[in-house]
């Protein structure tokens, strides 16, 4: 069951101003039986002042279609035609304390019936290129037709662009699959192929470890420490140039503890620096190791006092 507001239910159970209207001089018909909802709005307009003296409706449709029609008749009574023209579908929904996103089209139909009735009174032909598709984005009530037209008109090619243009997909993001399907269809019309942009991206460079050649003997403890020191010596000049420094604190199996000092410590690029050193270290040792920055107790105390 839909989560209808009390006001929607009240207007559905006790619709106001129903049935044909005697003396009506304006009629607006919208919708059709195949769409599942159809609304006829009848108005009695005072010719001199153009004030709507009375309004009735007949509706074939669901609960919210009937409630929206009933609300509309109440809203327009006493208004001039020009005032009534300013009523938006959101105004109708607001009058009812809101409608579920799937049902917003009921309020749209109400506004359209009003425009059709006013056009009918004024002897104009009211036309609407109204086309509606299945609801795709429930967060922002965007239907497939709207998405399709927007993709076509603006030559869109990614879900992100669709979200930027229509808001569809910008909320819970569960409708990205149907949006991609519409993109595939419309892009095929213009001879393009949709390429998913949403593929997961690695957040860090992937380090490929070359398997140690069988002939190469595994590094001994001393040789390993020397290699580690060599890598640190190699990166030091770069760090010194940035007024920082690095020192080896300890080696515990795969964990190589280092201490970054000076400008490097707490620098925004610290994580990137450590990742870079780690990559070099893995390459040099031919095994996976982890660089672990450890702050010396003194340095920490110093930093907490505002540094130098």
């Amino acid at each position, binding site marked *: *069951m839909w989560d209808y507001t009390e006001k929607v*239910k009240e207007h*559905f*159970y006790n*619709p106001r101003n*129903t*049935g044909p209207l005697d003396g009506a001089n304006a009629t*607006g*018909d*919208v*919708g*059709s*039986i*195949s*769409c*599942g*909802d*159809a*609304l*006829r709005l009848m108005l009695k307009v005072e010719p001199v002042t153009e004030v709507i003296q009375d309004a009735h409706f*007949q*509706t*074939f*449709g*669901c*609960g*919210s*279609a*009937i409630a929206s029609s009933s609300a509309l008749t109440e809203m327009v009574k006493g208004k001039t035609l020009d005032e009534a023209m300013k009523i938006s579908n959101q105004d109708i929904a607001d009058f009812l304390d809101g409608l579920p996103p*799937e*049902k917003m089209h009921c309020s749209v139909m109400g506004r*359209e019936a009003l425009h*059709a009735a006013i*056009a009918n009174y004024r002897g104009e032909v*009211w*036309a*609407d290129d*109204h086309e*509606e*598709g*299945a*609801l795709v984005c429930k967060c922002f009530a965007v239907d497939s037709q709207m998405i399709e037209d927007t993709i076509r008109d603006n030559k869109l090619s990614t879900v992100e662009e669709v979200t930027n243009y229509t808001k569809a997909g910008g909320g819970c993001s569960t409708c990205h699959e149907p949006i991609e399907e519409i993109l595939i269809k419309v892009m095929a019309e213009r001879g393009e192929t949709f390429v998913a942009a949403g593929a997961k991206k690695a957040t860090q460079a992937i380090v490929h470890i070359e398997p140690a050649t069988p002939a190469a003997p595994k590094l001994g403890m001393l040789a390993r420490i020397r290699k580690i020191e060599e890598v640190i010596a190699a990166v030091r000049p770069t760090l010194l140039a940035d007024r920082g420094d690095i020192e080896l604190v300890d080696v515990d199996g795969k964990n190589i503890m280092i201490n970054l000092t000076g400008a490097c410590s707490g620098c925004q690029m610290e994580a990137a620096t450590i990742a870079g050193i780690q990559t070099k270290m893995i390459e040099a040792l031919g095994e996976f190791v982890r660089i672990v920055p450890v702050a010396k107790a003194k340095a920490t105390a110093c930093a907490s006092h505002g540094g130098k």
Partner: protein
Amino acid sequence: MSAPTPIYLDNNATTACDPKVVEAMLPYFTEQFGNASSMHSFGNKVGVALKAARVKVQKLLGAEHDSEIVFTSCGTESNSTAVLSALKAQPDRKEIITTVVEHPAILSLCESLEKDGYTIHRLKVDGKGRLNLDDYAKLLSDKVAVVSVMWANNETGTYFPVVEMAEMANAAGVMFHTDAVQAVGKIDINLADTKIDMLSASGHKLHAPKGIGVLYLRRGVRFRPLLRGGQQERGRRAGTENAPSIIGLGVAAEQAMAAIELERTQVKALRDKLEAAILAVVPYSFVTGNPDNRLPNTANIAFEYIEGEAILMLLNKQGIAASSGSACTSGSLEPSHVMRAMDIPYTAAHGTVRFSLSRYTTEAEIDFVIQAVPPIVAQLRKLSPYWSGTGPVEDPAKVFAPAYA
């Protein structure tokens, strides 16, 4: 008439869990919490209870062996497992035969498989929801991996001749699966006497809880599991057993079997009474599907020139629960695919209401619904621009001239 409300006539959607079922389940949430796979007494007792439940389900389905019963989480999982298994076990076969009126659990799966390159043959139905078996026979070939056809339609209750269709598939060397979630527990089923290879059932359609399904797998049918992992269900459906629900389903299966005669007699009589009484009083209404060959509990009535959701809301106000094939109840724009497939005109398709009874439905309830429905229909028709006085406006196309359609 005093209202014996609430009146639940939406048993094809789900059923109330039987109190006896709940009672049987409760100990397995508390003292009998063990894992059936464990090598201690906590697990062992659960294992014994699961075995007993499996036998009860086997009997309800008329299966030859209890090992042919695989417990799953729902009918949808059973359907997906069956179809995907057939494809995986026979990689050279790239076609599936199904029907246009299947449940979304099959239709959406097939749409997705179509995008993956499989060919889907969807058998059409006539105005009463019946298949043409000649069309079906022509499609059977060694390219077809599986036929998946529902036993009874969820909206109209109309049966498909699955036993006969399974024979035809078997003769052509094609696997046959049936989605029988609406049929199991309502009609006699004896799978051992059929050539049905796989069958899906769902606990909550027969007074067991939600979250438990069954996949019947005929012994010897090639199978590839959907979920792999532990050895539960003999490796055919990994994942710790939902012990309380399986045990509950066992009780429900036993009760359904004992009550199957009631479905044929009492439930059918009440359904027929409801239908006849409404049709006699409400003009421009008719039964959809095939009235001569359908589930005993289902009545699907189309009320022309009004919309289903509005009917449901007014019924609900009087404490009557039913469902509708109208577009508005689902949030889609099209009325039910089943109604469209039977070519029910739009004037009626939006106004279909399904009343689905159970063996717990009483005559007093049906009498109340019989007197509640006609005024509701009249009230909504009074609001409809397509209705005038005692009948539809003469030429709806002329009288109602929308600025757009």
